[in-house]
């Protein structure tokens, strides 16, 4: 046999044993959920982690005092590590307090850090002091928690931070002590009291019902001081930001963040007799909507069963969308997101395409509690408050010509709900029947308003010069420029000359800090499901030009602020509804924003994924999910049979092409 033939057979044999399955055969029968991530988490420190990439880990590794009910909408808080959702206790001085009673028998994940207090590699019970320690970390300037400002109403929160910073500066020996020692010596936060081993009291200087939502976020999870002291990056140990030690249903088993992450079931989770009774967060909810069962988002048989169901969750890093999506189509990822390039093949008529539905795939849609908008810098003399009625009419006119529906269809495959106000669906105060009169396309009315503003056909009636505006954007990609061009074209119908000033994110931020902008586009995804978390973006105290806050439009309206402050401390009742209505009427007329849309997430999952209903609010729901490994293995095998004939054909073609050349060559030589 000729050597080339042997080589060809060798390749063919090698390929015959090939498969595109990226996972070891030994894992096929196991209850493992396969998922992917694109950005490596920057930190897993629960006091700092604020991105979805981090939350897929911290949301599973750390438990919280409260949590959202998995299935109820609007969102409802229920007890988790706390025995109940505490009621606000008013104080004579106008403050309020909340007393959390912590479940008994909750254990931290077993970790070597506990040798500092318990001996070798053991765990220990969670106490109220662990929550107080984490709250002190939130206040600690060196930790740099993005949520520190949200706890300003906790009595003594800011003074504690100042005291701590001062003591560190004054005494380097103090600064070198472990964090828990420093906090103890600095006296702790006055409004955070450890009443007993299982009782934690939080005292606020004023009513703030929204504070409870923060106790459903990993920011306020119990953190063992031992973990922070032990994982300090010294003596070959990791940093605490890379080594979480929590109480959650899963523990982090593998963390090679550039490559893969692996969560493993925490066998000790709510296993003690003391911790389990009446712990709603540890069992699958019984209140299941029939619609969820029919749509197969939830399997009714799981009601009342102990959580979690998955043994392992594997996350593999996929930086690029296309390979990630293709691997999902092959069945190697259990859940996926639709990429723009394949949208039409996956979704048809707002539902799964017949081809995808035939594979048993499911499409879950969730409207995010978000708002995307174009903002006006209200400090600007032309488009802002100082321009008075002229400026208001100019903003109203510009709002009337932006076709957000066309924008959604052109750039986001229609994934979104048109925004009429800053409030998205699912948030108290949202009215789905409300139509904002300045968010309905009406060119004639816009032209009339513009003329009334003194800018007929875009010309300034006073000077005769065309009105030139600048649209500052934080993205310089070609795709983003096309999107901005869409808005500019709409304004061009009015004769307005709007110039796009595209800059990098950093440059844009610098412009915002300097106040050197007129129009901008921005978005916000809520931290918690309350109207306050949207209206604060328009409160004067949060104006960028005054406090560097998130009110980038610099909208300052006394009446709006008065209503906001009254509304934010009220429960969701008729009075609050009335106040919200008045606030919305103000934003409708004043137009600091042109509301565009509320983002809609389309998530895909395979037939073998059970209980795939998304939660929204960036909360992972893995503890409720399950998989059918047998069905997965069978379908993966069916979908991924290697196609070998092209290889044989290619080898044949090479041989066929070579033989005549060899013959010609030898004939010529002879």
């Amino acid at each position, binding site marked *: 046999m000729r050597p080339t033939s042997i080589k060809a057979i060798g390749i063919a044999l090698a*390929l015959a044993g090939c498969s595109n399955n990226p996972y070891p055969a030994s894992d096929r029968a196991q209850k493992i959920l396969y998922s992917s991530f694109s950005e490596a988490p*920057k930190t897993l420190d629960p006091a700092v982690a604020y991105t979805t990439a981090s939350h897929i880990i911290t949301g599973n590794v750390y438990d919280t005092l409260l949590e959202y009910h998995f299935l109820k909408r609007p969102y409802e808080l229920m007890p988790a590590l706390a025995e109940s959702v505490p009621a606000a206790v008013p104080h004579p001085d106008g403050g309020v307090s909340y007393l959390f009673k912590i479940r008994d028998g909750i254990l931290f994940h077993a970790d070597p850090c506990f040798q500092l207090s318990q001996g070798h590699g053991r765990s220990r019970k969670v106490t109220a002091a662990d929550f107080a320690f984490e709250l002190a970390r939130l206040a600690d*300037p060196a930790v*740099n928690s993005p949520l520190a400002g949200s706890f300003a109403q906790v009595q003594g929160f800011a003074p504690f931070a100042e005291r701590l910073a001062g003591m560190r500066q004054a005494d380097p020996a103090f600064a070198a002590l472990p964090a828990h020692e420093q906090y103890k010596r600095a006296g702790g936060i006055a409004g955070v009291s450890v009443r007993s081993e299982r009782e934690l009291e939080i005292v606020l200087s004023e009513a703030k019902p929204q504070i409870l939502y923060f106790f459903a976020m990993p920011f306020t999870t119990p953190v063992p001081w031992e973990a922070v002291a032990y994982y300090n990056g010294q003596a070959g140990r990791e940093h605490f930001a890379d080594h979480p030690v929590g109480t959650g249903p899963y523990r982090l088993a593998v963390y090679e963040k*550039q*490559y893969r992450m692996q969560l493993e079931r925490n066998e000790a989770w709510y296993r003690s007799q003391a911790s389990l009774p009446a712990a709603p967060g540890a069992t699958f909810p019984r209140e299941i909507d029939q619609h969820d069962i029919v749509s197969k988002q939830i399997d009714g048989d799981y009601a009342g069963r102990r959580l979690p169901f998955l043994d392992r969750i594997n996350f593999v890093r996929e930086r690029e969308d*296309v390979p990630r999506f293709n691997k999902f189509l092959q069945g190697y990822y259990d859940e996926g997101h639709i990429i723009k390039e394949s949208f039409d093949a996956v979704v048809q008529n707002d539902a799964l395409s017949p081809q995808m539905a035939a594979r048993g795939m499911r499409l879950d849609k969730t409207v995010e509690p978000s708002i995307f908008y174009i903002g006006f810098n209200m400090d600007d003399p032309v488009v802002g408050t100082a321009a008075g009625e002229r400026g208001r009419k100019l903003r109203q006119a510009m709002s009337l010509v932006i076709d957000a529906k066309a924008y959604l269809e052109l750039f986001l495959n229609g994934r979104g709900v048109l925004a009429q106000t800053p409030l998205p669906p699912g948030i108290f105060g949202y009215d789905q029947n409300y139509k904002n009169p300045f968010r309905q396309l009406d060119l004639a009315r816009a032209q009339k308003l513009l003329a009334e503003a003194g800018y007929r056909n875009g010309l300034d009636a006073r000077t005769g010069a065309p009105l030139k505006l600048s649209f500052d954007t934080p993205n310089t990609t070609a795709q983003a420029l096309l999107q901005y061009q869409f808005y500019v074209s709409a304004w061009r119908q009015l004769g307005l000359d709007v110039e796009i000033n595209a800059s990098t994110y*950093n440059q844009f931020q610098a412009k915002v800090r300097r106040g050197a902008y007129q129009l901008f586009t921005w978005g916000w995804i809520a931290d918690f499901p309350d109207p306050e978390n949207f209206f604060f973006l328009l409160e004067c105290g949060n104006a960028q030009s005054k406090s560097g806050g998130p009110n980038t439009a610099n909208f300052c309206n006394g009446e709006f602020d008065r209503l906001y402050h009254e509304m934010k401390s009220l429960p969701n009742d008729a009075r609050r509804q009335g106040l919200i209505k008045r606030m919305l009427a103000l934003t409708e007329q004043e137009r600091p924003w042109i509301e565009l849309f509320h983002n809609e997430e389309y998530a895909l999952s395979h037939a073998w994924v059970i209980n795939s209903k998304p939660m929204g609010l960036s909360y992972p729901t893995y503890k409720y999910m399950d998989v059918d490994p047998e069905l997965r293995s069978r379908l993966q095998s069916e979908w991924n049979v290697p196609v070998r004939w092209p290889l044989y054909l290619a080898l044949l073609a090479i041989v066929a092409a070579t033989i005549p050349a060899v013959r010609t060559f030898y004939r010529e030589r002879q």
Partner: protein
Amino acid sequence: MAAYLIRRTIYGLFTVLGVLLLLFVLFFAVTDPDDIARKAVGERARPEVYALWKKNHGYDRPLLLNRAYAADDPRRYSNTLLFDHYRRMLTFDFGNSDADDSAIARRLKEGMGPSLSLTVPLFALGLVVGVLLALFVAFFRETYIDRAVLVLCMLTMSIASLLYIIAGQYLIGMLLKWFPISGFAFDPYLAGRFLALPVLVGVVAGIGADVRLYRTIFVEESNRDYVRTARAKGCGEARVMLAHVLRNALIPILSNIVITIPFLFTGALLLESFFGIPGLGSLTVEAIQGNDFSTLRTMVYLGALLFIAGQILTDVSYALADPRVRLT
């Protein structure tokens, strides 16, 4: 040769100092350390957090001159960003990443293995396939095989490498289902399955230019007198090509390949990124995307060092391959 190597190394050192100066201008004079800090700790961080971050990363010092010290105090010059930049780079103390505070040296160590596991087979297979194919084409020069292969080479050179990656993943991973579309395993047995596709794609993407270059060299050598003499003496065509032509064509081939050897350590940017290989190429892409200046600075510096090393290696390889070449 020793004297030559010492001289080249000294030249190289001066080049490195120049590169470091250029890097300093690019990374510090153009980019404000405040912006780097803001990007790292967040826009809304408190001023003391910025200050702490800058202090921890050494960005709190002045660029060239520290006026906090007296004119005769050496710290006026040593306690500056410029001095620290030179000190760190020349002692290979790369510090921590601006993005996530991880030690850059550790990231380099972790990423080198995956990068080499991709680039070494890619380099070796690309070289073997390129040389063999070029020899084959040179052997059949002026036949339809020669012309067809040259047209194919031109075609492969005209296509962007990104397209090879996407098409390779779709065709071989998705449609033919021969190999996983992407992924990596540190276990050498499992790694082969993941690396087969990127290596194949990399070889195909780079083969056109190599074959054209090597073919030209081989054809030129084939027309020389010593080849004619060998044939006249009855030497077989295969022996002529492999023992005579190939050996004498080694010098220009060496100049093409030796300079690339050091870069095997820095990985392949696009291949690693698209195939999910956690190597140094991915690290560089991530540093660019994440404004991680300290990592990016390190990678550019290492790239410059490796380039200089590659040039010296090429000169040495000339001398080793051709006894007529003397390095003086």
